[in-house]
């Protein structure tokens, strides 16, 4: 009888650590496919002692994979739960390949909204606010807060993925992430507003040598003007060029 090997806490840590390389070979055809293989290879080799079974199992996953990189270890954890069942019992309660395919879409959407569209901008806004308030270690604030959250999340995701398997999507949805995202966006809007007066008291970004109130009014006017341009669906590059031409006109109209 084949030796039964269960997945240990160290195997899950290994998956989480390897998930830092899930996008290392990103390509248009299979996206994170190779990264996913890299994530699960070590643990699969442990549960499948038979080399043929191990190779067969790896080839099964040599396919398309794409999700949010921070949520990728959660899927790997869930897949490994069912692969472990398959290796031990010869059958599993759910098809691990189907789990992989069904989780990557929802996790991609949740992860991108949470990390790329919310956490990164919010923490950026906080760091920029800190930098303008003359806190010179503002970049460390960004790196520390975002880095810790993302690293801890990768490990947490691996563990809950393995623990809950396919039910992980229910567990994640119960976290009510969309309410959290909305609240964080409210905070971000407030901080972005607060950045404008800080820009105008910071000697590096102060617009012209007028009084604080005049500078604030000018700055607020520029922000609103650009805001309208963005609402008209102009690209960032187009807005930058418009601002540049505006500045050249200003320099030629008003004396130095």
């Amino acid at each position: 009888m084949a030796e039964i090997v269960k997945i240990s806490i160290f195997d899950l840590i290994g998956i989480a650590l390897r998930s830092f390389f899930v996008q290392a070979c990103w390509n248009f055809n299979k996206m994170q496919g190779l990264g996913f293989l890299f994530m699960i290879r070590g643990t699969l080799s442990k549960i499948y002692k038979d080399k043929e079974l191990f190779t067969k199992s790896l080839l099964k996953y040599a396919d398309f994979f794409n999700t949010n990189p921070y949520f990728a270890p959660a899927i790997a954890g869930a897949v490994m739960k069912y692969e472990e069942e398959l290796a031990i019992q010869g059958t599993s309660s759910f098809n691990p390949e189907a789990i992989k395919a069904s989780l990557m879409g929802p996790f991609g959407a949740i992860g991108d909204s949470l990390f790329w569209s919310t956490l990164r901008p919010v923490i950026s806004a906080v760091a920029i606010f800190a930098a303008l308030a003359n806190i010179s270690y503002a970049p460390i604030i960004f790196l520390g807060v975002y880095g810790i959250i993302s690293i801890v999340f990768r490990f947490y995701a691996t563990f809950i993925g393995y623990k809950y398997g396919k039910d992980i999507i229910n567990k994640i949805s119960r976290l009510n992430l969309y309410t959290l995202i909305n609240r964080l966006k409210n905070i971000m809007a407030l901080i972005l507003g607060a950045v404008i007066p800080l820009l105008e008291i910071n000697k590096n970004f102060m617009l012209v040598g007028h009084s604080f109130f005049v500078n604030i009014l000018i700055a607020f006017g520029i922000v609103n003007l650009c805001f309208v341009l963005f609402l008209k669906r102009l690209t960032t590059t187009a807005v930058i060029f418009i601002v540049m031409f505006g500045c050249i006109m200003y320099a030629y109209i008003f004396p130095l």
Partner: protein
Amino acid sequence: MFFEIILAVLIASLIALDRTAIVQVMISQPIVASPIIGYLLGDFLLGLKIGIAVQLLWLPALQIGAAIVPNSSLASLLICIVSVVGEKLPQLSIYSAEAVCGIVFISVLPLMWIEEKIDTFVRKKNYLWFVFARNRIAEGDTSSIGVANLGGTLFFFIKNFVFLCISAFFLTNLFSIVIPHLPRKIMFSFEIFFKILPLAGISAVLGELLNRKYYFLFATGVIIQMVIVIIYYIL
């Protein structure tokens, strides 16, 4: 200057890998990457200023799925290298650093378009590593997965290094010749331009990442901070 640029480009190329390829703790974000390079080259503050402007402007550009968006990390790193190195050149040291930054910033925009094309090319070629790994697994060699996976990172690193190296040397030499011949008013306009960039960036975040429903909160933020600033100065 030569070794300074090479060293900065080498470190910048490694930092830029964090953006989409490996680790992703966001050390590659302009607000972090630019001050690091600025510090290494001798002007942390200028690096931070560039980081703030670029971070805000390209915060809404999300690299999701197969989308290839302007690489704000490489843009900020390039602007920082060229501006800080330029600051030390006798031809450019007489000009305001912000004005030089403004000119470098606008010149980097077309280069970002070229970088997007190179990035797309690399991401197409990375499929070769996948095919290599799959074939080796089928032959029974599973150890090649790690090598193939890191092979993709090597492609990304080479792309970053070559792009930054060529662009940094080209722009530094170009501006050391061109800027001394520019009229004073143009230099003044680029100084203002650089100072306005964070404001345009705030609009970009407001217009593209948030939307109209957050405008009230944004305006509230302006008023609250104005009151805080006034109280701070009165006290």
